């Protein structure tokens, strides 16, 4: 089964972001991520616009798995979306 494409918006300071990365690593899932707080102001503004489209509350981690958006470290939902539950 093909692994769905995973994009994750995170903060470097956020514990649940870290837990989510650890979960994906443990499951051998490849993913892209961006630590929004580490970007320079210009880039951050652009990226935050993207995040808002997915999650109007703009909280982290915001995880896009194929077409599905999951907000927060919700282990069960993430695993289901990845088809590894």
């Amino acid at each position: 089964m093909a692994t769905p494409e995973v994009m994750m918006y995170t903060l470097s300071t956020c514990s649940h972001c870290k837990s989510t990365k650890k979960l994906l690593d443990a499951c051998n899932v490849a993913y892209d991520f961006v630590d929004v707080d580490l970007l320079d102001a210009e880039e951050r503004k652009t990226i935050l616009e993207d995040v808002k489209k997915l999650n109007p509350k703009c909280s982290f981690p915001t995880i896009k798995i194929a077409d599905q958006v999951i907000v927060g470290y919700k282990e069960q939902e993430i695993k289901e979306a990845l088809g590894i539950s």
Partner: protein
Amino acid sequence: MPWPAGSGSGLKKSCMRARRGVSDMSGQTEKTGMNRLINEKSPYLIQHAYQPVDWYAWGEAAFKRAKSEDRPVLVSIGYSTCHWCHVMAGESFDDPKIAELMNRYFVNIKVDREERPDVDSFYMTAVSSLTGSAGWPLNVFLTPDGKPFFGGTYFPPQARHGMLGWADVLNRIYQAWKDPGQRAKIESSAAEIGQKLEQHFSGASYHGDDTPLSLDLVRDAVQAFAEDYDTKNGGFGSAPKFPMPPILNFLLTFYRFSRETGQESPLGEKAFGMVKDALDAMAKGGIYDHIGGGFHRYSTDAIWHVPHFEKMLYDNAQLIEVYTDAYQITADPYYADVAGRTIDYVLREMTHPEGGFYSAEDADSAPPDPSGGQPGKREGAFYVWSFEELESLLAVEPAGTAAEVFYYIFDVREDGNVAQDPFGEFKGRNILHQVHSIDEAAAHFGLPERKIRESLARVKKRLFVSRQTRLRPHLDDKILTAWNGLMISALARASVVFDSPGYLAAAEGAVGFIYNALYDPDTRRLYRRWRDKAAGVAGLADDYTFLINGLIHLYEANFKPWLLEWALELMHRFIDDFVDPHSGMVYMNPKSHDPYLAFQMKDAVDNVTPSAASAAVRGLVKLYRISGDRDFGAAAEAIFRYAGGEMGRFPKMAPYLMTAALISSAKHVHMVIAGSPKRAETKKMIDAGRRAGGVGQSMVVVGDDADRAKLSRVLPDAENTGIPASGAVAQVCFERACRPPIDSPEKLTEQLERGFK
């Protein structure tokens, strides 16, 4: 088993037992010789060290002798502030003739239930199932291998009023034991009781009907407590009435939960109304010590007037917390006053110079005017007043109105104010209880309220000073880890709500004491009891769980990382030693338990203190939310699943477990605040976070690099937390999704307000 069955009903029954004599423990000194209890630390056991009974402490020596001599064993259980225990001790155990029977036929063991609640629980359940009721003193007869076959509570020395006499009991049991036919029956019934006990304590009666602990069950419980509620007098049930802090705590938490979520508002208001009325009624009643602060153990009547006068640390600790919470919700200074005076009492009378808290003060003491009463000690003598005494003390008050005002407010009467006094204990005495408010007194006497308050304060002080010259009731000065945990929670909460460095220092002092005196850093285990320079008795489940909750409360007050580290370490130890992860059962005694108790015993029913299971879940939910440690989440889930099945049938079984359930289902709002705690900005940020007051919120503060290093060992948040060079920043996560850090208390407040919606 539903509340108030089990030990609760036993406790009530033995308290309601008719009183037939006055014990005089001072008579003991006339006896010559001591028995081996003189080597014990428990004040209760030492009270029996001068008796002619050849007592043993619980343990190997006693059971070894019973086996080698094939004698039945008597286990006699009580505690040092137990009135009826003193009565039976004075009547029977001090009597050389009765002692001779006991020594000739039995091996006799004395147990302090406060030191060994596991032993107590085992035999309490045995006697309940044998006779349908139980209480203290608890007297149980066992086969030499420890199986109970007969028991009861108080026995008079000789038969009277249809009650078996203690001497008859001893003779009959021994005769039966020596008769081969009867002995066979004894042994088969002992085996049968043993099986029943095992079923009861192992949860074998539980059918595995797992039900998640839902809001429906919580609602049912609030309704069930409402049905029990005495709308006329406040409190639950009828006489005798116990304060039952775990119920009050649950109802307050339910009220806060209903306000936060907007769900169940009418029921929330109803819950809050019950708590408020109960708190008012208790603080006005004779169960409250209007002169010295603190609460007595329970009221013998439904109107909270006539108490049993012993003061227990666990009641006072939990009531301080409830009154403090009530103040936080209502801002009514009355609750602050009651909480503050009760704390003053504990710090003044119940605190060891090195920081731990003592266990209890007795009900009985020598009266101030022995000529006027029976010799020896009397119930409540330290606390009650004759009219003449008050008149002479208050004669110095100018113009006499101070005395009149005091009498009016506290129902003082010339011939005493105790109407229900079947044994003449309080003849001509007044038990102070507040029957009129300050407003009413102001109207009645045509004086401004301020004058009334001033005069009341003066009179109270005068009575307090005069009372200090009376002989104090006996102090049980052993220090118990579990009960200290409750007091640490109370002081830590109060230090936050009343912004009191003194309360905080007292809580820190007690934690320091427990760490130094009652914890073994090599085995990472707790002891239960310290007294006279010695720790003893392996820690039980309530020692771990009550202390862990105390440490969490104290962490939330001072944010010292080591408290969290220690709490997390103790919780891992607790899960290993006391929790069955498959069934979700919590045991009161550890896996490597006492060989003379047959098995680990489950502990799931809240009573005057929470069960270990309920206290454990609260700690697990809090620590899971703070640390993200999945072991804690899983253990909490397992206990909820087990209890949910039971609570479907017995909704009043575990109110404190439902406090934990509400914390667990409330919105999880976690704050990490970074900034030196010395800075005003950090303090403001912390205050803004606290003000949000979410039932399920948690907070971690990272003050400096050292803090961060310590916290990183246990918390996933800490490692990446940037500590600003000036000011403070806060990062908030709602339900495991975090917002970018913010740098002002106003923004934090705004974010929290939005987030809770």
